């Protein structure tokens, strides 16, 4: 199984040109996709930062560290394989979300918050 391919100076593109017309790449051999969640500082929630490829969870955490926290973006990382994320169907959007539009009374905006309270 070909886990990854090596490109060095000069050989980029040659292989593609030679293989034009053939099946280019076996996507089943690719590493699975992972979703990355980063906590930017203690006390805050983990937020979705993006996704990446990795062979397993340990590598996903390390890759996330290198890809998403190199500019001091985070203090904690969660990863979950993308196939385990279940999403709502865009076709159901009207049914699911529109009814909330005219229900302003559900917002807690009628309270006065003390200034010391951050991140509400």
């Amino acid at each position, binding site marked *: 199984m070909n886990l*990854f391919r090596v490109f060095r100076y000069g050989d980029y593109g040659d292989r593609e040109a030679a293989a034009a017309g053939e099946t280019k790449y076996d996507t089943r051999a690719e590493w699975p996709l992972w979703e990355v969640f980063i906590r930017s500082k203690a006390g805050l929630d983990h937020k979705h930062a993006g996704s*990446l*490829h990795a*062979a397993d969870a340990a590598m996903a955490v390390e890759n996330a560290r290198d890809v998403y926290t190199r500019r001091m973006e985070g203090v904690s990382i969660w990863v979950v394989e993308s196939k385990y994320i279940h999403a709502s169907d865009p076709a159901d959007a009207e049914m699911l979300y529109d009814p909330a539009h005219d229900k302003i009374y559900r917002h807690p905006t009628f309270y006065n918050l003390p200034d010391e309270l951050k991140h509400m």
Partner: protein
Amino acid sequence: MNQQLLFYTLQLADNALINGHRLSEWCGHGPVLEQDIAISNIALDHLGRARSLYQYAAELFNALPPEERSTVFNSPALQEKVQMGALLDEDDLAYLRDGWDFRNVLLVEQPNEDWAFTIARSFYFDVHNFYFFEALKSSTDKMLASIAEKSLKEIAYHLRWSSEWVIRLGDGTDESHQRMQNALNERWMFTGELNTPATFELNLQETGAPVDLGIVAPRWMQKVTEVITEATLKLPASTWMQQGGKNGVHSEHLGYVLAELQFMQRAYPDMEW
């Protein structure tokens, strides 16, 4: 004695620069995007450490008496500056010295070949770096001790990264196992030099500035054996150990590295952008 300390500092700086440059050759050519970024990050870590060490080396050089300064290096471009009485900075040391004035170990100048060879070189070097800089934290030289303190966190990550790859490839498919074993075997002959002190290291020993390589060597061997065993690989058979890098005697590969690394400054001296 200060000249010995200069050589010692340069040796550490050259290791960092040349190793960092080799890793940076992967930038844009990594096997997958994530590892391309990881290896480029690591290359930059080494480059950062090289800068701190070159700055200190330049300081040590500039503090030498003038008559001593003119005999330290043999590189024409650098000598020209020194003869004019100019003080040197980090860039002069990185860009104007020729191969014979470089003191990096032979291991770090070896070519990347494929991913397994790159990992083998990094793994041997990272294990050494980790135990070496751990010991350098207690150096009597305050500057070296603080550079060690600062570098150790990065180096701990480098070691984890390269060890994981040795295990991943060794314990992977038949082909990755074979390639990893082959790379470890091929690079083994350059590992002896890591823990063999050069004359300037021995001369400095009584000052307490350098690391006692006698302490690093068994730790290196233990860690390397541990990881290689976990990777279901075999420790390479003992062989003739190459050396000479610490004294400026290099393999032909260093010349090509420097040709690329120094081209801009040599072609357009003191250019800035």
